């Protein structure tokens, strides 16, 4: 997957490129709107990450021009401006998402993946990692052949981790996906929820699947 980052701050562009490259994306950088537009027209990108405040003009205009020319690739805004009207304006212009600085890298990654997956996909009925299986239709979870007794929210949480297996999910993202909580609460609710889930899913088994990435979030994956 190819991503174009239009960002004038070299440091920010640098770490974004590094982070995204390490997650399997091929990343190019443009530092002005003009360069960005030119590259977007000539190279076939799958997604554009666009800073709002750029030296030559505002990032808004890039979206406007690309959309006017018929490009429908996903565009994600990055901005330190978090006023509601800025957000709304960006989305109305045709951007697909809007992320306010400072953001967690895991958050950006999760959103990029969501945007790239935007095309309707058939959700699988069954999810499996190692010996953990989830039957989404029947709401049944099994590990190592024995059935796990999960509450509805625990099941949703586990399903999210499994569906995004291998991705580090931030606490904010988990709160939003599982409970529909849209604000950044400073409680340790997600940690508590994960702890309780681990008790049922991981504790009885020697092979642990849910891992903590300190300071970032949680990931469910097979580790050897």
């Amino acid at each position, binding site marked *: 997957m190819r991503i174009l980052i239009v960002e004038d701050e070299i440091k920010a562009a640098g770490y974004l490129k590094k982070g995204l490259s390490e997650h399997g994306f091929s990343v190019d950088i443009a530092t002005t709107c003009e360069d960005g537009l030119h590259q977007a027209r000539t190279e076939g990108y799958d997604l554009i990450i666009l800073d709002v405040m750029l030296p030559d003009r505002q990032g808004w205009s890039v979206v406007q021009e690309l959309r006017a020319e018929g490009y429908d690739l996903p565009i994600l805004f990055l901005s330190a401006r*978090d*006023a*509601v*009207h800025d957000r*709304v304006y960006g989305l109305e212009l045709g951007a697909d998402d809007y992320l306010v600085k*400072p953001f*967690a890298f895991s958050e950006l990654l999760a959103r990029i993946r969501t945007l790239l997956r935007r095309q309707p996909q058939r959700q699988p009925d069954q999810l499996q990692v190692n010996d953990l299986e989830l039957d989404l239709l029947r709401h049944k979870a099994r590990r190592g052949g024995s059935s796990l007794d999960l509450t509805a*929210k625990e099941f949703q949480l586990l399903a999210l981790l499994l569906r995004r297996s291998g991705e580090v999910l931030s606490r904010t993202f988990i*709160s939003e996906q599982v*409970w*529909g*909580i*849209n*604000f*950044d*609460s*400073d*409680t*340790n*609710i997600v940690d*508590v*929820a994960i702890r*309780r889930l681990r008790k049922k899913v991981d504790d009885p088994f020697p092979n642990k699947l849910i891992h903590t990435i*300190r*300071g*970032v979030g949680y990931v469910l994956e097979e580790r050897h």
Partner: protein
Amino acid sequence: MCSKNATDSSSSIATRLTVLYTISMLAILASVIGFLLHTMVADLEFEDNDFLIERISSIRSVISRYPHNLGYLKEHLMPRDPSQRVRYLVRLQDASGRTVLESPTMTSLPPLLFPPPVLSDQPVGTAKKHKTGDGRYYLLNAAWAAAGGDPQFRLLQVALDVTEEEALMANYRLKMGIALVAGLCLAGGLAFIISRRELRPLRAMAAQIAQITASDLHQRVGSRRWPNEFAPLTGALDSMLGQLEQSFERLSSFSANLAHELRTPLNNLRVESEVALSRPRSADDYRQTIESSVEEYERLSRMIGDILFLARPEQGVELHNLNARTELDRLADYYRTLADDRDISLTVDGTGTIAADPRLFQRAVGNLLANALQYTPRGGAVTVSIQPGTAGEATIVVKDNGTGIPDDELPLVFDRFYRSAQARQLHRDGSGLGLAIVRSIMELHGGSVTLSSVQGQGTAVTLHFPPN
């Protein structure tokens, strides 16, 4: 401003008091002096009048006894020594108007000047005052005298020289006038001195207040003894000073807290990174440093987000008609994870529709639930209830039976960064912005938030949403 008003004489109390005192004094002195003069004049005139009446009746009786003995009358009436000036003069005329007898100086008072005579059987009236050309004053009276059955036997005209009395009275009037003016001057002067003296506490108070600056707002005006009339003023001033002092303290503690909350994570980041870089380390050490940094970054960005949220004067609020029950159930589901972990029951009660911005509503109630769970011990209960009002307004009450808030902290809990000693202990990572944000959100909705708490029994926070 105070000193300017004090020197502005048109609105000076001292000047006004002096003027009013002097006017009152004028009224008092003038009426007393007027009364005295009037009585004196009246008494004198009464005596003189009486004297004339007495003379008339005495002459009437002589005439009726000796109708034709002019010699006797003359002797009775005229002074023996013609050079001696007599105080009273007499003229006798017969019914035809011919003068029968007359005092020598009576010539200066022609008969026509006299009042019409009363009949001989009638009481004598009041005398008439007359000023002659040579500046002398006379009281004039007239009456008929009867004799031998003729009621109009003689016309009797008498005059009393009151020139000296008039002069005396004029002298009195002058002296009284001088006394009046002198009294007024004295009264005015005294009034001015007294009012300035009695207004001295006012200047003293102004001086004392002028000395109070932002750095010593703890001073109180009422600590000194003032006249009783100042009590409401000093009371009001002191309560104002108290409020100013409180606001000032809040403001300075806000700045101090802001500095603390921003600098602490920044300092952690900086020093920890510097220490990590100061010599070569294992990859694990670096990892630990970076992980710790990420935690600080998170704390810092949340803090900055909260501060910016509070600092923004106007926020876009997108009002939707929310099913409050659905929203609260969603929140309760989330917080129940925490509640279950601590054996606290979390229940939602009631239904209703609320016009609110979904994101902000969630944040406000979420903050309250987080607080309630924080300060409720194991086995406690937290309830969220929706209470629709009659006029379309609605309230959300988040109630716990936890530790409660001491009375002296109640007014402070909505202050930005305010954290009680208990909060610092129980919730080390808290920012002290939670309730400030709740209040800000409610103000954005045109509503309000109220809090009631009993220490040891729990706290209830009520969000009031206005009708849509």
